[in-house]
């Protein structure tokens, strides 16, 4: 269990464990041979924490998220949420997808309300939707259709839709990958504001180093082929963060080194 201790070194939170992955592995069987999405993953996400999973494509980070969501099953190991093993999707674990996955035949309001309608929620749906519209700053767009929205707006709707179920866990799969750089930065600030206001435990998957360090309370670094969890780096900087915070810049160097992206001058000249 030495590896568990090692991976958990980034744990600065004393809050209780919300999501626990133990020796988790996912293998996709194919005729041409098995593909390991990830293996030997030991990871704990704590209550109220915003954990970023950072890694290149092919490191299995999206599959990891699907496993927590219950959309995919583990091949080995276990995944538990609040002590209960994950068995299929549940409305308390909301998901936000990279390409929004909004329902184009519904208005913004109806999209947000979808989860409440789907599970026959009997409470005051209207006030829940109104609160979320305000929280995600979608006022004036309630009756719009997804096709009329910009990428940033569409992702706000997707976020509000996931939150409407009063989720305990929010899973975000490269949510800003399709946005332009400026909208992405704006949305990064928004997501921190909204997630922290709701106090919801969040797993945020990204391949953007700066995004992970700007958004995450901790950053879990994964490597590809096969997907493995290398280490978890805490980001002990209070939100809202300054993008040019010297501490952030230092951490960035650390992450670069971790991915072998940092070259010393000599190395550079040898090439």
């Amino acid at each position, binding site marked *: 269990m030495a590896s568990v201790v090692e991976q958990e070194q980034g744990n600065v939170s004393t809050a209780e464990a919300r999501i626990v992955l133990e020796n988790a592995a996912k293998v996709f069987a194919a005729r041409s041979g098995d593909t390991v999405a990830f293996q030997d993953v030991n990871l704990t996400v704590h209550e109220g924490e915003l954990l970023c999973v950072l890694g290149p494509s092919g490191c299995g980070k999206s599959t990891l998220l699907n496993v927590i*969501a*219950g*959309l995919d099953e583990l091949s080995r190991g276990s995944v538990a949420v609040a002590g209960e093993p994950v068995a299929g*999707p*549940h*409305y308390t*674990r*909301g*998901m936000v*997808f990279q*390409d929004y*996955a*909004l*329902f*184009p*035949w*519904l208005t913004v309001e109806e999209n947000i309300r*979808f*989860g409440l*309608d*789907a*599970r026959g929620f009997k409470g005051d749906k209207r006030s829940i939707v109104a609160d979320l519209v305000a929280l995600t700053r979608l006022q004036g767009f309630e009756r719009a*259709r997804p096709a009329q929205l910009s990428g940033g707006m569409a992702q706000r709707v997707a976020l509000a*839709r*996931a939150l409407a*179920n009063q989720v305990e866990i929010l*899973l975000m799969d490269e949510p800003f990958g399709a946005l332009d750089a400026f909208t992405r930065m704006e949305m990064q600030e928004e997501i921190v504001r909204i997630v922290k206001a709701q106090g919801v435990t969040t797993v945020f998957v990204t391949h953007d180093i700066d995004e992970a360090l700007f958004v995450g309370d901790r950053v879990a670094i994964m490597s590809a082929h096969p997907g493995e969890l290398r280490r978890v780096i805490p980001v002990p900087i209070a939100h809202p963060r300054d993008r040019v915070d010297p501490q952030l810049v230092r951490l960035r160097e650390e992450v670069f080194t971790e991915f072998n992206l940092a070259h010393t001058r000599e190395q550079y000249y040898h090439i």
Partner: protein
Amino acid sequence: MSEAMRTEGRLAEQVRDKADADTETAQSVGVPVASRWSARLRNAGIPVIGFLVILLFWQLLTSGLVSESTIVTAFQPRNAFRELIGFFVSGVIYSHIFASLERIGLGLALAVAIGVPIGIVIGHYRTAERASSLAFQFLRMISPLSWMPIAIIAFGVGNNPVIFLIAIAAVWPMIINTAHGVSSLDQRWIRAARTLGANEWKLVRMVILPAVVPDMLTGLRLAVGLAWVVLVPAEMLGVSDGLGYYILDTRDRFNYGELMAVILIIGVIGYALDQLIRLLRVHVSWDQGER
């Protein structure tokens, strides 16, 4: 998807493309108003010219140039148009039109009620698709009219066998297009709905059904075309009203002007029904017919 189903899917896409082209030309944006009007006139003008050419041929073939027989000249356009006006003045045609529309409405309703659920199951479950594909390709190629004797034995003489024949003609495009829509459904919607707490039934009602509305309307457009074509011969047996019946009636009365007038009415109503579904697809469907 089997090969034939894919072909049908392509056909459906062509119908869609056609619908797109139609709406695009009607909505060309950013063009000065005057030239837009002239473009619109040109758009409308060419099809009208084509129609006039057909009329000219009709006139030439029946004017006595080909044959001087009075049977042939009785088919002349001027007789047809005179009888056409007569139909609406006397009102004799209305009950036949309504009888035909009622049958087509009931037949299509039946085709939708049967075709959509079957299409959803086939599109949703790969095993169902494989189990049904051979049988459906076989059944689909049988002319609906071949069922007529069986329909009469099963349902007796009257409205019911006609409605059955329309339904059996129209059910295939409904099944195939619905199945195509379901099987090519965006999987992200399914995954999103499942994480939002939708069970299997809610998934069908809240995601799959609304998502395939455009495909169902494409199917309906093909179904209407087939149903309208089948209606006329189906009405030639065992019923005493409807446009198909009336064609035989005019023939028996040797009134060939009226016969041609009925043919004109059949064409106009068929065209109108097709346009109605096309408009429905553009305005009701969430993709505004843009797929």
